C-alpha cells in the first residue's frame, strides 16, 4: 500500500512534468493549428536554449546569470524560429504534408549537427538558481522549491496563452487563420505575417520550456528528439491544434507517468503509450481536436 504523503509528492512531481510538457506541446499544437504543419524541429527549439543557458550559467551558483541566460536564450531561439519560418516553412505551406514533414525533419538533423559543432557532446549541467534551490516540506516529505516554480510557470503560460488568443488582435487573427485562411486574407490581413508571428510564439514556448527545465535535467545531444516524442503524444492526445487540449493531454500524461512510477515502476514507460492508444481508439482526432478539414 502506498502511503498518502508519498502519493501527494508523486502527484506534485507529475504536475511538474505536466507543466513542462504543456508548454512544449502548446507550441507544437499552436503551430499546427495555425499552419497545418507538424514542426519536427520543435525539439531543437527546446534543446538550444538549454545549451545557451549552460554556456552562460553552467557551473555557477548565482541567480543573476541564470535569469539573464534564460532571457537571452528565449529571445535568441524565438528569433531563430522567425528565421526558420521565413527561410523554410513559408516556401512549403502549399506542398503536401510529406514534403513539410521531411523539410522540418531535415532541420532536426541540421540543428543537431550545428549544436554538436558549437557545444560538443559532453554532458552539461545548469544549477538551480539561488533563491529557488531549497526544499519545502510537504506532509513530512521534502519537495524541491524549483518544481513549484515550474508548476507556476505552466499555469502562467496557460493563462497568458489564453489571454493572447482570446483578447489580442494577433490572437483572433491566429484563430481566424485556423478556421479560414482565405477569408482572413480577403479581410485585408497580412496572413504571412500572422503565420510568422504564430510560429515565433511556438518557438518561444519551446524555448521557455527548455530553459526552465534545464536545471533539472542532463543537457546533452538527443534532448531534442526525446522531448519531441513526448510533446507529440501530448498534442495528439489533446487534439492537434487545440491549446486547451494540450493542457489536458499534459495533465493526463504527467499524472499517468507519476502514478505508473508509484504503482508499477517497471511498466511506467508503457503507460503513456497506453494512454495515447486508448484516447485514439475512442476519439481519433484527440480529446479536443477538430477533424482534418
Amino acid at each position, binding site marked *: 500500500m502506498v502511503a498518502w504523503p508519498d502519493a501527494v*509528492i508523486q502527484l506534485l512531481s507529475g504536475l511538474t512534468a505536466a507543466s513542462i510538457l504543456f508548454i512544449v506541446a502548446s507550441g507544437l499544437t499552436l503551430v499546427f493549428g495555425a499552419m497545418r504543419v507538424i514542426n519536427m524541429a520543435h525539439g531543437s527549439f527546446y534543446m538550444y536554449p538549454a545549451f545557451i543557458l549552460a554556456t552562460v550559467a*553552467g*557551473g555557477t*551558483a548565482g541567480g543573476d546569470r541564470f535569469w539573464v541566460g534564460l532571457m537571452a536564450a528565449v529571445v535568441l531561439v524565438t528569433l531563430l524560429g522567425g528565421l526558420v519560418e521565413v527561410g523554410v516553412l513559408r516556401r512549403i505551406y502549399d506542398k503536401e504534408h510529406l514534403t513539410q514533414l521531411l523539410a522540418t525533419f531535415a532541420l532536426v538533423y541540421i540543428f543537431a549537427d550545428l549544436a554538436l559543432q558549437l557545444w560538443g557532446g*559532453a*554532458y*552539461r*549541467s545548469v*544549477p*538551480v538558481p539561488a533563491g529557488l534551490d531549497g*526544499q519545502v516540506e510537504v506532509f513530512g*516529505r*521534502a*519537495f*524541491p522549491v*524549483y*518544481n513549484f516554480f515550474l508548476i507556476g510557470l505552466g499555469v502562467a503560460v496557460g493563462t497568458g496563452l489564453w489571454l493572447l488568443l482570446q483578447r489580442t488582435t494577433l490572437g483572433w487573427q491566429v484563430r481566424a487563420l485556423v478556421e479560414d485562411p482565405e477569408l482572413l486574407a480577403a479581410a485585408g490581413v497580412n496572413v504571412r505575417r500572422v503565420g510568422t508571428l504564430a510560429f515565433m510564439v511556438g518557438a518561444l514556448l519551446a524555448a521557455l520550456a527548455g530553459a526552465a527545465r534545464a*536545471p*533539472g*535535467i*542532463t543537457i*546533452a545531444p538527443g534532448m531534442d528528439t526525446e522531448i519531441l516524442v513526448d510533446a507529440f503524444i501530448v498534442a495528439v492526445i489533446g487534439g492537434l491544434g487545440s491549446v486547451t487540449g494540450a493542457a489536458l493531454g499534459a495533465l493526463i500524461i504527467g499524472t499517468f507517468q507519476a502514478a505508473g512510477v508509484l504503482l508499477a515502476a517497471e511498466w511506467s514507460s508503457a503507460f503513456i503509450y497506453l494512454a495515447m492508444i486508448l484516447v485514439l481508439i475512442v476519439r481519433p482526432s484527440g480529446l479536443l481536436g477538430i477533424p482534418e478539414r
Partner: protein
Amino acid sequence: MFIYGGDLLTFTKQAKGYGFFEQVKAGGPWDLTLLPALKAEAPAGHVAWSRAPFFAIDTPEVKDFVRRYRAKYNEWPTEWSLLGYTAVQTWAWGVQKAGSFDGDPVAEALAGATVPTIRGSITLRKCDHQAEIPEYIGTIAASPHPEYGFPILENIFVAHPERIMLSCDGAQKLQPR
C-alpha cells in the same frame, strides 16, 4: 547505483531536490564525464568510482598527456580519453610485434602480453584477452579542486584487477558454448 552517464546526472540533480543525499549514503559511477559538469552540484562525501581518473594515476607520461590534452581541447581528459589513448598504444604495440595490420595476428601477439603504456604496463591475460586494469574508488570532495575547477575523488582506494575481475575459469563458465 547502477545507472551512469546522462541518466546518473539527471538522477543526481533531481534526487538532490528531494533531499536524497542527506538521507542515504550512495555509491555510483560519478566519473570524469559527470564531475566537471556537476561541479558544486556533485554529491560531496558520497562514494564514486572511475576506471582511469587522470588525477590518481601518477606517472610522468600521464601528466604530459593531461597537459597536452588540455592544451588541445581546453578540457580535462575523461577516463574514456585515457583508456582510448592506452588502447591505441596497446594496439600499435601489437601491430609492431606481429608485423601485420591483420586482426588475428595482432590479437595473437597481444594475448598474455605485457604492454608499456603511458599509465604503466598493462597485461592482457591470455585466456580471454581482457586488460587487467584497476578501478579507483573514493569519496567526492566537498569543494572544487583549485586547478581542475571540479571536485575530484578523495581517499582513493585502488581495487586491483585480481580482486575485482572474474577469474579466467569464472568467465569461461559464463560464456555460451
